[in-house]
């Protein structure tokens, strides 16, 4: 709730409308690392999803492996390819020992359009290897997962999604050990994965 209070102050400052400021430069990514094995496992969420092979999978599909999880939508042209690129970059920078062990789970906001066939096309076009899983849950479950991961999104009338990007690192049991909000230097995230 601390942020709620901060925002109330932010709101208060708008009582006197000011000149519209120029758009600020994009901020550097915020990486938070938590001590491992505290907090609940997100694999407790009973969410069923359809993956790019048409199989029904659960959130815990990668249990036993450290996992990078994020959300996206397939028809997105800018931020989502950037997200896939950023995760690929993280995988490439991992020490050899953990590189093969790590898994990636990308969950779609957009079950209506991100069918298994569409997800399979994304796997092909981005040349994603077997470490990657792309899947879509129901709209209700997408909202649940977004709330758990702290990803905010809005469905816009024209079928676009406005969303924040966060790459969340889970330990082998599905507990969050690090998160990166925004895209940029993933050094701290890589360090958390390497441990």
């Amino acid at each position: 709730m601390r942020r709620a209070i901060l925002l109330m102050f932010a709101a208060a400052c708008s009582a006197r409308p000011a000149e519209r400021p120029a758009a600020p430069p994009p901020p550097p990514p915020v990486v938070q690392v938590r001590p491992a094995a505290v907090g609940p496992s997100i694999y407790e969420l009973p969410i069923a999803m359809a993956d790019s092979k048409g199989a029904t999978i659960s959130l815990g599909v990668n249990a036993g492996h450290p996992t990078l999880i994020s959300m996206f939508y397939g028809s997105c042209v800018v931020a989502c390819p950037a997200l896939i690129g950023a995760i690929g970059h993280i995988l490439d920078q991992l020490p050899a020992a953990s590189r093969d062990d790590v898994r990636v789970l990308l969950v779609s906001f957009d079950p209506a359009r991100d069918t298994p066939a569409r997800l399979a096309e994304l796997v092909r076009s981005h040349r994603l290897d077997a470490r990657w899983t792309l899947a879509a849950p129901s709209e209700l479950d997408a909202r649940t997962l977004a709330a758990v991961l702290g990803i905010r999104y809005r469905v816009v009338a024209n079928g676009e999604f406005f969303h924040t990007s966060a790459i969340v690192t889970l330990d082998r049991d599905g507990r969050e050990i690090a998160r990166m909000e925004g895209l940029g230097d993933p050094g701290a995230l890589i360090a958390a994965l390497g441990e």
Partner: protein
Amino acid sequence: MRSLAIVALSAGIAAAGPAHVGPGIYHPAFPASPSERDIAVAGFWLDREPVTNADYLAFVHAVPAWSRDHARSLFVDKDYLGHWASSDGLGTALPKAPVVRVSWFSARAYCAWRGGRLPREAEWELAAAADARHRDASADPTFQAQILRWYAKPTPAILPAVGGAANAWGVRDLHGLVWEWVEDFTASLVTSDSRDPTRSQVCGAEAAASKDPSAYATFMRTAFRGSLDGRDTATSLGFRCAYDRSPR
């Protein structure tokens, strides 16, 4: 006599059942994009009053997984139902007062249990734009001033009971008692396809975009929703449920 009593009773329940709201057009004071200036809201049903402590206690009895002692930390913070004396006892909290200290996850679970769902932001705002006589009083400075006066008051230690005056839709207590969860609270303040989760820039940009100071109350609600996480609970944050079809 007996059938008469039943008729009278069901009539009473009908009057207390959810109110039909809409269809209508919701005009956000701070459209997130040009395509979102007018949002069509289909007709729906909305609880006339916020969910009360007594209502929520019945839920916790029926679904003990959502009791204070059993709710998963993935879904609630440590203050969940903290105003109750115990896991299944209200203590000094009034049975007819709105339940507060509930998370978005728990509010959703309650509404699903009741056969409904949380209202979406556009639905809640459409219902809340009405005063006692007009379905859209959003441009009325007196109505807006009244809401802002409430926002300026601190939350009382013991919340009063629900049952304020009905608005033009027949819905009570949308303003003046507690803030309320909406299904798509995470949509608040997401204004671009953003790799940037900073919400603070909204203060200048969005507030300045609105020339109408009466929109300030709406801005307060949007800012509040945008600041929340799904696990958060607060002493002044409750909810009510919506339904896609008449629950009866």
